[in-house]
């Protein structure tokens, strides 16, 4: 079991506000790891700190054994780690065609045979080549999220950071995107780190999960524990109750 992502005592603060307090996580290569919690629990900050979108003041981060603590992330990092964001309406450039959007990561990483790769990437996310010259505003939310996934997968990363990838979508579209992600993970042997507030989604997608609250990991458990209601923290129990819907 080799570690894909190792986080030790990570601390992120924004001025006086501590968003992450000494969080430690270990994600094994090939596994799908979930993080649940409510708004403000620090779950998105954790992903952003890994991706380099937020800086962490203390702690260590290692990806595939390479240490990235306090060091600029190089191209190698971004070839290994890619991220898909929550809001497909906000994460695609509004004035670039799909073709241009997919070309960008290839150009950055100096990858050749762009033509074939773009066609293949679109095909993999279930969109035909006809979508290549569309703008993102011409697409539905589900189609945009497919493009965002294609953009992340096109540089053939090993680790995918998923920040609420389906919470802006309808339940029916969510099922399609989740299936697409699972398929991609099987085909490419990817490691997932997935953040969501929906326990149902996390237990479906992930083998292990961490429950976060106020910037701390309060409980780590497996999806099987969750299914058998073997949870110890009150907070996790509350999330479980909430996931079962409204009870009068």
């Amino acid at each position: 079991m080799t570690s894909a992502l190792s986080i030790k005592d990570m601390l992120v603060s924004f001025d006086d506000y501590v968003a992450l307090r000494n969080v430690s996580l270990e994600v094994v290569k090939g596994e799908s790891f979930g993080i649940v919690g409510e708004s403000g629990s620090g779950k998105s900050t954790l992903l952003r700190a890994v991706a380099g979108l937020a800086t962490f003041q203390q702690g260590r981060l290692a990806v595939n054994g390479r240490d990235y603590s306090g060091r600029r992330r190089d191209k190698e990092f971004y070839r290994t780690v890619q991220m898909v964001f929550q809001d497909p309406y906000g994460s695609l450039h509004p004035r670039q065609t799909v073709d241009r959007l997919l070309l960008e990561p290839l150009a950055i990483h100096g990858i050749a045979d762009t033509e074939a790769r773009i066609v293949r990437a679109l095909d993999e996310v279930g969109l035909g080549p006809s979508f290549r010259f569309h703008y993102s505003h011409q697409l539905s939310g589900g189609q945009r999220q497919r493009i965002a996934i294609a953009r992340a997968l096109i540089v053939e990363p090993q680790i995918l950071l998923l920040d609420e990838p389906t919470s802006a979508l309808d339940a029916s579209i969510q099922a399609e995107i989740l299936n697409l992600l699972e398929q991609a993970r099987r085909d490419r042997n990817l490691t997932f780190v997935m953040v969501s507030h929906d326990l149902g989604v996390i237990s479906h997608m992930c083998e292990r999960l961490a429950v976060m609250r106020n910037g701390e990991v309060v409980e780590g458990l497996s999806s099987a524990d969750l299914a058998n209601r073997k949870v110890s923290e009150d907070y996790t129990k509350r999330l479980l109750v909430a996931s079962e819907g409204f009870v009068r």
Partner: protein
Amino acid sequence: MTTLLTVENLQVSFPTRTGVVNAVRGVSFTLGRERLGIVGESGSGKSQTGRAIMGLTPGHARITADKLQFRDIDLLKASARQRRSLRGSDIAMILQDPKYSLNPVMSIGRQIVETLRTHERVGKAEARQRALDMLEAVQINDPERVYDLYPHEVSGGMGQRVMIAMMLIAGPELLIADEPTSALDVTVQLEVLAILDKLVAERGMGLIFVSHDLRLVSSFCDRVLVMYAGKVVEELPSADLAKAKHLYTQGLLNCLPKIGADRHPLPVLERKPEWAA
């Protein structure tokens, strides 16, 4: 049960450069003092149905119906002035995201008082007191403090409670809630729903709950209308949801991941063209 609202063959269409888009195509239902859920995907016409009843459809759209009646008022023939006096005082609407639906440059208390004083002749002191009482009714612990806050200073859950307070202060008989909890955290969702549930029951209002989440709606409402492509494909009591006959309803139910259910891949919705016919 007295009928509060009758909708017969409601059609809402939008003329566009590329032809007419029929958002709602012949929706009919009646509503008493009960909780009705309207469920469907984006673009199914569920929100436009609610907006047409509220009178918030954009001006260029065409609304036709055999009947659109609230109590004894024909909403199709009502003047703009009459519609305006109904909106807020008799029919109220809760929108999805308090971040966008509250006025950002007006304090919470003032917004609530504004709603009240638009519909009722009350003095300043009394209006303030009633706004505070209303904030307390939606379980805001410290109404005096929240009264003077601005919307950006409160959390999403609290913002949505403020929204509910504002909508209920004039004592409407019909409340349309359009995805009232979709922007909120799961745990907060339940708190807001519980408050809504209690107030709707206490005041004996009619409620139309519009959402894409079939499971949530069915746990909250007495009856559910399932919409697809502008039409109602199935209507059933929430208790009988498991016995849904239409494939679309079953599909909506099945596509949700459940804790402990090992279904890979998840069943996806098949959309048959004949459902839209």
